[in-house]
């Protein structure tokens, strides 16, 4: 557990929860990032303005962090270009088919005690843990 960063993780989590609460309280929307992003890019979707503003806000947040810290956020990639493309397609298609991701199901849906979100969160967590196990300890051990 030498990489454990409890303070920054907790502060970040509280900010994410606060942001999701503000989104619901002020604008009545669920801060599910996959849904927001697909509403920006899919042709003909309604209510595009608020989604674009939310995404721009996210980018602004990352830029503010970089300016205050004086250095970009840590970025240690786990895949090369081919892995990034395969994973990106899976995440994009899967989050639409499953109506949400870590934020929509994991943070907002669980807070609403949604059975769908509870199930989805368990399934994508378990699948991701299994996937990492296979990559690191089955394929990785054999390579």
């Amino acid at each position, binding site marked *: 557990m030498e990489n454990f960063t409890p303070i920054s993780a907790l502060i970040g989590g509280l900010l994410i929860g606060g*942001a999701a609460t503000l989104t619901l309280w*002020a604008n009545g929307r669920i801060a599910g990032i996959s849904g927001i*992003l697909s509403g920006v890019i899919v042709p003909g979707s309604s209510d595009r303005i608020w989604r674009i*503003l939310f995404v721009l806000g996210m980018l*602004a*947040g*990352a830029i503010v962090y970089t300016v205050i810290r004086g250095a970009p956020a840590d*970025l240690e990639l786990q895949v090369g270009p081919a892995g990034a493309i395969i994973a990106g397609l899976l995440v994009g298609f899967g989050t639409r088919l499953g109506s949400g*991701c870590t934020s929509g199901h994991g943070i907002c849906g669980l807070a609403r005690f949604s059975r769908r979100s509870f199930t989805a969160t368990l399934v994508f967590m378990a*699948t991701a843990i299994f996937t990492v196990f296979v990559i690191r300890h089955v394929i990785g051990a054999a390579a």
Partner: protein
Amino acid sequence: MNVNSNAGRLTIFLSGLLFGLGLVISGMSNPAKVVGFLDLAGSWDPSLILVMGGGLLVTVPAFHLVLKNPRPLFEEKFFLPTAQAVDRKLLLGAILFGLGWGIAGFCPGPAIVALVSLNTTVLMFFAALVAGMLLHHVILE
């Protein structure tokens, strides 16, 4: 008043900003942290439990209180998901998402904030993420 009002627009931008800041501060925008959490059999990094726990610590009580209001501040009504059924689409979607998340260590939010790195691999992941969403739209919507 609605989200097209200036106050509504400013608030939604601020919400995005706080969300993005939270993702970066928490470490979720770094795939090594995410995979370190998912790797239970390796040198496990439990940080992400606190990210999700911190988020839920706020949203569980706050959503309950907020939804007691008749309507949000800048809209006529709350826009909440209506689907109830745990169906095959939900399960298959969660499996495909979990597979991609485990491979790259990126889910959609972190992929967006990591764009500011202008790293080529991040840009490729993001392009594929968009393509996957469009593919779903074309064949299933």
